[in-house]
Structures are given as structure tokens and as C-alpha cells.
């Protein structure tokens, strides 16, 4: 299993860099993962998206529909891409400690 080390934090991740065990997630890990997705600083807006995805995942064990994510956070898809350059499915979900969304996406 690959490991990554960011700022002294050692994480077990899958081949795409998503954390292997979503339950260990915390804010420190989110900050560390953000750096791997080109997000240098997690602002309030970032946290709004990350926390939304995280809470949805805890309730439903899956990422929310992109459309629902946009509506409930009040960000347009374009704004989400500005916050997370690699997009909601890859960047935001990774930082929120979800497994990588898979399938025809």
C-alpha cells in the first residue's frame, strides 16, 4: 500500500492518492491532502464544500450529486472548479477523505 508524507503526516493512500481508511479523516489530514490537489490554503469557502461532502458521505457512504453539492453550498460548478482545480469528484472528494468516485465518471 503506498504511503505519502506531507508535513510530517504519514498517510496510507490508494494508487490515486485517496486515503485508504476514510474513518481516520480529520482537519489536519484534509490540509495535507489539499496540498496534493493544488490547493495551498483551505479557506472558509473550501471548508464549506469539504464539510458538506464529508457530512453527506457520513450519512450516505457516497459523494453527493454534483448538482446537489452546488445547490446546497451555493457555489456554481465553475466556482467549485476555481476552489478545487482538479474538480469536485477528484479534488474535493479526496480532501474530504472519501474514496475515489468510480464508474462512468
Amino acid at each position, binding site marked *: 500500500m503506498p504511503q505519502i508524507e506531507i508535513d510530517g503526516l504519514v498517510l496510507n493512500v490508494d494508487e490515486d492518492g485517496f486515503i485508504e481508511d476514510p474513518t481516520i479523516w480529520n482537519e489536519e489530514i484534509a490540509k495535507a491532502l489539499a496540498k496534493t490537489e493544488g490547493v495551498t490554503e483551505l479557506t472558509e469557502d473550501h471548508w464549506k464544500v469539504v464539510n458538506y461532502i464529508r457530512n453527506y458521505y457520513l450519512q450516505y457512504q*457516497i459523494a453527493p450529486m454534483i448538482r446537489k453539492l452546488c445547490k446546497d453550498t451555493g457555489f456554481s460548478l465553475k466556482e467549485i472548479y476555481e476552489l478545487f482545480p482538479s474538480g469536485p469528484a477528484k479534488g474535493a472528494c479526496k480532501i474530504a477523505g472519501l474514496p475515489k468516485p468510480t464508474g462512468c*465518471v
Partner: protein
Amino acid sequence: MNAPQKAKDLAPLPYRILDDEEKVRKAVAIIREKAAESRMFKLAMECCTKCGACINACHSYLGTEDPYNIPTKRADLVRSVYKQEIMPLSGVLGKVAGGIGVSAELLEKWFTYFYQCNQCRRCALVCPFGIDTAEVSIMVRQILAELGMVPRFTVGIVKNMANTGNNMGIAKPALLDSCEFLEEEMYEETGIKIRIPVDEEADIMYVPSSADFFVNTNTMIGVAKMYHAAGIKWTIPSEIIEAANFGLFFDEKVMKEHNRRLLDCAKKLKAKKIVQGECGHGWRAARMYTDGLNGPVDVEIRHIHEEAAYFIARGIIKVDPEKNGDIVYTYHDPCNLARAGDIIEEPRFILRHVVKNFVEMTPNREENFCCGAGSGLLMEEIMETRMKLGKVKAEQVKKTGADYVVAPCSICKAQLPLVFEYYNLPVEMSGLMDLVGKAIIL
């Protein structure tokens, strides 16, 4: 990277990882068996005269310029083993015919190049013998699976499918939440209560693509609006919200298990008709294989475009093309609809009714080029290859001058926006039911 990452853990597939020696031994045994038992395989191996007709017909070769992606050269990776194994005096005559023995390196080559074939069947159309290299590709991926060589991405999907009944891994509570949200969205837009019924007994069981509950939500909305307008009771089976059947690409057992699930759900919900959503290969797997692999089927299997075309033609639903604006639309034929499933004219009929300006791309229909992700090549780690596989498609779209590409297949929908961005094409893309949903008069 050229080849997808291989899965280290194959569960729930009934195969295991083999060491090199075992792999080679097993590969030889399987090839010998196929050479004796499969007429299709023998023909594909024996017929080819290397005339070269397939060279420039294959988007994989045109995009990657790698000679192993010439359909016949790709098949040669297996043909060389076949010739070596069946030829008398194989040391001499086998070598003359291009024969080589199986080695671990050769098997790696199989894995690399048979996962750069989109199984689009375009080469079969131009071949003077009609050799269908997609069939060779499907067969080789099956052999590779039996040797324990399967992409990690594919195993992940099989796992999700086994656990939840869809590729994404959406469990029922999440599905219900998503449907409720989409119902609210439709109510906000139209002021009408349009339902997306889940697990209710109905004549029509609609099988969407699970990606419709993540990114392609407008496809789902289009379908819901259409059945609402037609006044027909329908339902979605929570146990299989997946039209895609990745088994078709690499493993018959997986395909069969998927089809079994499909038919069981239809029985449970007392459906008379299974309607397949916007998925290319899933249509072929359900329509062409359900009967063959899973025994006689007493339920009708239809495609959502057949339904929509029927409703429009009979005036059961009304559509207004004005609602989709003045922009120019073009249509991308998903390979498995156009070259393997005969959903060719229905989407065009629908499109002419729901948009004002529609132009064909060239070539089209059964001669259309693949998006470059067909046969499930959606792995992130082969992105560079995927973009090369999408090159011909990008050129085709560019030539049309269209603003909007309609691509009714979830694999195409996942691949094309990336291709358009990579080749700097400012075009939008969506499914076809999305546009039906926008044009429909409720």
C-alpha cells in the same frame, strides 16, 4: 503510463494472481483450447492477409501512432502464439508465419494493447474478411482475467456492482435522497410534481446509468419528465441502477451475473418491459446477451431512445425545439449503439424534433469513430493515452463547427469533456434525454 494499473486483489472475481511461470503455462493451454474449439477465434487468426485496410480505420492507431494499435498488429500479439502452437514444424513453418512463444513480457504486451483497444468494431467494417477484432479483444481480456491480470479500476467497479448493484456504489438511502432532490428541482423549474419512483411495481422498469446520479442528472430528469408527460407508470430498481455491464468488456461471468440481477429485479417489480438508459455497451449486453447467457427472457427489453422516438412520433409527448435555442447540435454515435445494437435512426429522429439546428459529423452512424474511452478505458492513470484515443473524435467534432455534442452514453459523457478541453474545443456536451427534458411541453 500506457497500461492501466493492475488490481492486486481480484475479489469478488473468481480469479487469482498467478506467478509468471503459471501465467505462461495457462496462457498456452487456453490458446490451444481456443484454437481447437472456437470457430470464431480460428477464423480471426487464420484469415488475415495483412492487406492493411484496417490501418487507417482505427482511431487508436491514428491517435497513438503506435503500430501495435493497428488492429491486425494488435491481433498479431495473439496470432503469433496461435501460429506457433498449431503449425506443424513450428520451429520453421511457425517462425515463417510470424510465430513466437508465450512469455511473461508478451502477456504484459497483451495487457497494454488490448487495453488500448476500445472494442469499437470499426475495423470489422473495413476488413475484406469482416474480422471483428473487438471479439479478439474481448477474448484476450477474458484470458488475461483468468491469468489474474485485470485493471484495478475494473475490479473496483465489479466490487461496487456486487455490493450495491451499480458501478458507483450508491446504496438505496443515497438513491432515495438523490431522487427526492431531483423531484424538488423539477418542481422548482416546472411547478409540477414529477416523480422518480423507486422500487414500485410498474410495467416499465427503467435502468439508468449510475453516473446519472452523480454528474449526468439532466439525463435522469429528461426521462422522468418524459414518462410523466406520457402518463405512464414506471420505476427504477434500487438493486440495479446501472445500465453499464462491464462484464461485456472482459468477463462473461460478470456479464451474466449482471444480467441475472437485471432479470430478477424485473420479476420482483412485475415489469413487462425493461428500458435501458443512456449507456452504449449496456444496451448490447442487455439486448444481445440476456437471452443467450441467461436463458429465455419473457420481458421485453427496449432502449430509452426507442421509447422517446415512439412517444414523439405518436404525439404522446409534445416537444418544442425552440427551448433548446439557436445553437448548432451534432450527434456522436456511441459505438455499441451504432455498430452493435442498431440504435441509429431513433436518436436522430428525436434530435430533429427537440433542437432547431442539427448537423451530422463525418463519418457517422455505423462508421462513426469512438470517443476513445469505449470498453471502459476510463482509468485516470492512462489519461495521456485516453487523450490520444480521443484525437480523431476531437478532429471530427471540430470539422462540424457545432456548439454542442450530443452523446447518449455515460462512458462518452465521461470522456468527451476531457477530450474537448485537451484539444481546446469550446463545445458543450450532454446526453440526448437531457434535451428531450428541456424541450418537453408539460
